[in-house]
């Protein structure tokens, strides 16, 4: 899927009409006394695909972990799909059931089969009937192209397959937003493509996505917007062509030269 410039323009116009899926304003977070996220302002439209890049320790993972409150922010406001994240456990549960997340290390449940991994949350959190949950799980396992592995355990699968299962597991909860936290960083090079293909397919279906990734090819191809973070702040954001071809800040130029240089 390569989008032409005209399509991109049309897409941007279409997205502009959509409501916000995520609104973050004036958000700050500290780990102890370390100011890890500083005055973050970020709005994400429904259907928008955002890639977050930046050097390690720049706070990009922490940022998306705040969106489903795996990390707690100390000041500012985060509204996800109309629900504000506060210490109210009801709101947190509501947001988490609508936001799927894929981790660097997959975090599959090793004591359950692939199918059970995918049906556990629908059965116990959504209270879906067993038969329906199985059907949904098989549908998404087919979507990520590993239905034949359903009866195996995570430890029997390759890293790329495990990550695709993790994507399917998130999708089984029918999320409206998907967060990806460096989904390909722990994978062998030959497995990265199969995971990225799955993510591209998901993007095609119109999923709202925030992806923390160093895969600049993926960003160029799929992202509506690339966000560059450093030292806990958003340094630069732009649509991918401009971002890669015409970076504005010195920090961004340095970063791009380092990761694209070889």
């Amino acid at each position, binding site marked *: 899927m390569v989008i032409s410039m005209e399509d991109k323009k049309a897409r941007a116009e279409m997205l502009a009409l959509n409501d916000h899926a995520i609104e973050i304003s004036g958000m700050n977070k500290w780990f102890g006394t370390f100011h890890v996220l500083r005055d973050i302002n970020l709005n994400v439209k429904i259907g928008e695909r955002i890639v977050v890049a930046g050097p390690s320790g720049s706070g990009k993972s922490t940022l998306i972990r705040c969106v*489903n409150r*795996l990390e707690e922010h100390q000041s500012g406001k985060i509204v996800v799909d109309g629900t504000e994240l506060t210490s109210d456990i009801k709101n947190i*549960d509501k947001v*988490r*059931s609508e*936001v*799927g*997340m894929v*981790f660097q*290390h*997959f*975090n*599959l*449940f*090793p*004591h359950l089969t692939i199918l059970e991994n995918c049906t*556990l*949350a629908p059965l*116990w*959190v*959504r*209270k879906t009937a067993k038969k329906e949950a199985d059907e949904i799980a098989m549908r998404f396992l087919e979507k990520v192209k590993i239905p034949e592995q359903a009866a195996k*355990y*995570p*430890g*029997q699968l390759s890293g790329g397959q495990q990550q695709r299962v993790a994507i399917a*597991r*998130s999708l089984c*909860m029918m999320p409206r937003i998907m967060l990806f936290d460096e989904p390909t960083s722990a994978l062998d090079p030959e497995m990265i493509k199969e995971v990225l293909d799955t993510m591209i397919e998901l993007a095609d279906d119109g999923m709202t996505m925030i992806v923390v990734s160093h895969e600049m090819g993926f960003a160029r191809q799929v992202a509506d917007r690339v966000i560059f973070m450093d030292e806990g702040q958003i340094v630069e954001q732009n649509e991918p062509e401009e971002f890669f071809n015409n970076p504005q800040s010195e920090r961004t130029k340095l970063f791009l030269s380092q990761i694209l240089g070889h």
Partner: protein
Amino acid sequence: MKNVLYVRKEMLAEQSPPPSSIGAVGWIKQNLFNGWFNSILTLISLFLIYSILINLIPWLLSPTWQANSLTECREINNAIKDGGGACWGVITERWPQFIFGFYTRDEIWRPVLVFLFLLITIAPVLIDWLPRKLLLLLVVFPYVAVWLLWGGPVWSPLVSFLGLLLGYCTWHFLKPTANTGGAVGHVQLLSKHPFILVIMTIAIPIVWWSFLATPLSNSLTDIFPWGLKVLPSRNFGGLLLSLTIGVTAIFFSLPLGVLLALGRQSDLLIVKVLCVWFIEFIRGVPLITLLFVASTLLNIFMPPGTNFDIILRVVIMVTLFSAAYLAEVVRGGLAGLDTGQYEGANALGFSYWKAQRLIIMPQALKISIPGIVSTFIGIFKDTTLVSVIGLMDPLGLTTAIRADMAWNGVYWEINIFVAVLFFVFCFSMSRYSMYLERKLQKKN
């Protein structure tokens, strides 16, 4: 082709290994005579085993099973040869006491029945292809076992069990289900404040047990005086006593230990501090001290006239003791889990308790199996300590038996018998845990 240094033209065929490395000869060479040092060790070990067995076997085989006293044993042994054999007559005569203590002989069918019922009850726990519904026996077993062992009117366990059923019904029928969105009244109240339901589920059975159960079972007994002969706790002894204390402590200490382990990791400061203090206190005090507290001190704190059964007191102490140790074992298992498991569960929207039950505990307990079973085995053996507060466990009985003039001076035989009794149970537990580990290992 100039730059190629080496190219293989044809692949090598598979060959069989040299004969000295396979078969019996290969095995012996590899495992027993692998180098001169190991060969010497093997020979010394074989000599040691030989010299122990050559002395032990004739002693074990002494034909004294029918003797009625130590003197008679010695006569039989002297008649054969130089009189060094064991005296097994004491086992023939006293084995029912080792098993049942001073339990009334005519009522011995009761503990036997309980033991069979125990085997049936734990079968579905141990063997996973049995129907899961059989696990419900776990709920029924304590009531049946207590009633059969101690006796009393049939109504007491029934009425007490009814309290448990009441609690279950409260939970089951008032629990808000997934699709009661438009429901009114109590359902809406309960789905907004789920803790009200939890309190009701706990409070209703407690009210039942404290105020209604005793009068009801008394009046039912007045009308239908069916029941079993009451047997007091001092009749309990031998393996029966050890199993009663051991099984009850094992049964209740695992859930308690898991809760303590979770409490110790809790974000709630008070809960955490209480759990840490409890665990450290119990682990810092010898079990014998706790047993003395159970046998003497507890009575001082009780209102005068209350008869708090000694076995119950001991069971509570042993359970707490075992739970503190299990808590640390389970904590080790929890520490072995990747934080990603918690994050994965949270991100999917699991609540704390659901995540613990479905994702964290199955893995943490699996890691902790060796430690848990070690603690169980330790606790089962520690039940012999109750002899210091005057309860007649198998070891306590050995002293009582030597007090008999006929058997004064018998040491080895009865201690070996007790050792064999305990070994059977502890070894089975150990083997089962290894089987369980291997089975769970296969999955991943």
